[in-house]
């Protein structure tokens, strides 16, 4: 493998290219018209413009990208995350055109991309799943019966729905009948299909995922867990590894379950198996992400492994160079996703020009970054500027380092999630490790961030006034003579 095309942009394109370069592999970047000045274009050995700014006209044009790869003499394509990374059709086209897809086969992507198919596939391996129905229910009596067997609280979801629409949580028997009726009629009017799924509602879940890596020789390893419970709008913002609540015994069981999930779908390459962990530390299989995750660096820091290098080696047909017993956790790593969005305004995207953009540096600080000072945050793509990752001998050291790194990180021109990261790292619930996916809803309010800012604004006002009064005195001295 001598030349890799990275079908992505931003920090992940750079991240992949850096490892490829280290391995002596040439890199080809692709970019849209909006990204000509992006760092990944300059970093690559070669770069090709693939179309207009909207991703549907550039980064999502799979067939076009494969054509370009072929004409450039590329051996393999790395999809990064997002865009085409979980597109089975793309993986198929790449392979059909005689190129190597750095990722799993199209069948595995297909299976794990479909929730019901995924559940079906892992059935034989005894993977714990959230108790519930495996088929849509449209009969009220059947629904009542099922709900009672599962036990409260339960979650009712419209079978035809998605994105949280028509979801209801039922806490007790006395509200059951009316809630199911309402959920069904809501589903009927919203989707034209009144059938529902019923499952156990996990009330204070933590989101724990296991990194796995499989080679083409039948070896599947797990690289321990990442805790991703700090989320806003059901999307992760702060991640860490290891989790503060997993015992070695539980870690081992979850790791084995994740390996089984990978085996169930004939997985190859890097993947992530997501679990929910309830308050009693029972874990349930959620889904498998068939790509490199955004938050993979925390795993790299605690295991000392370069996951992209392993992906490439696996894609070259090599055997994984280590065994499960060789892997161990050293220290603690934390990641903050630095998004151009305003934590004081519902985390809405904040676009504009990066008038000042200086990254923090120092021991235990890693920044996977895709932007530079003076650049605009394009309106067309995900507004993530970078990932700020810190490492320490233990959890508290990693947190303290994160606070320090946040204060060194200078961004002007757009609002970012940096102040939110600061809030999280100072919050007693996060520091003690006692938190779940409801952290933002339960503990965070824009007013708290605002209050802290107002304190600083007052300090700034005092300092400026002091300086002004001193400047005034200095100016007066000559006239008094």
């Amino acid at each position: 493998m001598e030349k890799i095309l990275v079908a992505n942009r931003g920090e992940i394109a750079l991240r992949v290219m850096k490892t490829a370069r280290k391995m002596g592999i040439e890199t080809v970047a692709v970019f849209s018209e909006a990204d000509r000045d992006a760092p990944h274009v300059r970093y690559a050995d070669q770069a090709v413009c693939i179309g207009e700014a909207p991703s549907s006209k550039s980064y999502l044009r799979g067939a076009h990208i494969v054509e370009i790869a072929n004409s450039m003499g590329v051996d393999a394509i790395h999809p990064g995350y997002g865009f085409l990374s979980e597109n089975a059709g793309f993986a198929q086209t790449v392979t059909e055109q005689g190129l190597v897809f750095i990722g799993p086969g199209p069948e595995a992507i297909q299976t794990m991309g479909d929730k019901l198919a995924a559940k079906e596939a892992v059935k034989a391996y005894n993977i714990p799943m959230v108790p519930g129905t495996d088929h849509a229910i449209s009969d009220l009596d059947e629904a009542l019966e099922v709900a009672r067997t599962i036990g409260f609280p339960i979650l009712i979801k419209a079978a035809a729905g998605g994105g949280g629409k028509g979801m209801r949580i039922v806490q007790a028997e006395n509200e059951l009948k009316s809630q199911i009726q309402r959920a069904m009629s809501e589903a009927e009017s919203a989707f034209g299909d009144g059938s529902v799924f019923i499952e156990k509602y996990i009330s204070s879940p933590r989101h724990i995922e296991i990194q796995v890596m499989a080679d083409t020789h039948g070896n599947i390893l797990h690289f321990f867990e990442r805790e991703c419970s700090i989320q806003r709008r059901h999307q992760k913002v702060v991640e860490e590894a290891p989790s503060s609540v997993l015992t070695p015994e539980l870690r081992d069981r979850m790791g084995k379950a994740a390996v089984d999930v990978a085996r169930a779908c004939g997985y190859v390459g890097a993947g992530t198996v997501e679990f929910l962990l309830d308050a009693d530390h029972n874990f349930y299989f959620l889904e498998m992400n068939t790509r490199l995750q955004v938050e993979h660096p925390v795993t790299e820091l605690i295991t000392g492994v370069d996951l992209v290098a392993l992906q490439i080696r696996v894609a070259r047909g090599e055997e994984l160079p280590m065994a499960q017993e060789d892997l161990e956790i050293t220290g603690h790593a934390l990641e903050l996703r630095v998004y151009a969005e305003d934590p004081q305004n519902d985390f809405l995207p904040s676009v504009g020009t990066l008038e000042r953009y200086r990254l923090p540096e120092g021991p235990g600080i890693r920044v996977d970054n895709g932007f530079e000072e003076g650049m605009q945050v394009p309106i067309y793509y995900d507004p993530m500027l970078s990932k700020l990752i810190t490492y320490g001998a233990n959890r508290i050291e990693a947190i303290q380092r994160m606070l320090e790194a946040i204060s060194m990180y200078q961004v002007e021109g757009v609002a970012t999630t940096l102040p939110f990261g600061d809030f999280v790292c100072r919050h007693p619930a996060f520091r003690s490790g006692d938190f779940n996916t409801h952290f933002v809803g339960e503990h965070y309010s824009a007013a708290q961030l605002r209050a802290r800012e107002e304190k600083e604004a007052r300090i700034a006002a005092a300092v400026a006034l002091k300086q002004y009064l001193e400047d005034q005195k200095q100016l007066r001295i000559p006239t008094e003579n």
Partner: protein
Amino acid sequence: MSVPYKVSVNGEWSFEMDAKALDPFDMVRMDASSIHVLSEHQSYKTTILASDFHKKSYRVSVSGKPYDVRITDALDALISDMGFEVGSARNISQIEAPMPGLILDIQVSEGDAVQEGDALLVLEAMKMENVILSPREGVVKKVAVTKGMAVDKKHLLVEFE
């Protein structure tokens, strides 16, 4: 005698302060531009990044975050109250894009007379539609964009006569 000042920060906060109001802030100058502050025993590292004595404007970083500070005294306040201030809304002759985005719709054309608050055009940014309103009454001299055009921040949108 203590002169009261109005000190505004980032245009978002406004504090009434005089020289005496600085007393609770324990400030120690470290060098020409750095001042260490103790306020309610909390420690803050501050740096004066830029200063303009005549405009009474200062840029101060507190714990790494920059704040723009403007000081107004009684005389400035009086001038502003009497409407002699330069650059008030009435004098705006150009409307610029407040953020990069896509022009979805244009409601005015050249020669149109508009009132303050009338919709001029719709700018889509990050999947949100923002209606750009007229900040003044006047006649449109020029519409500098077309429907479907992508604009950068500060791109000229509409010019008034």
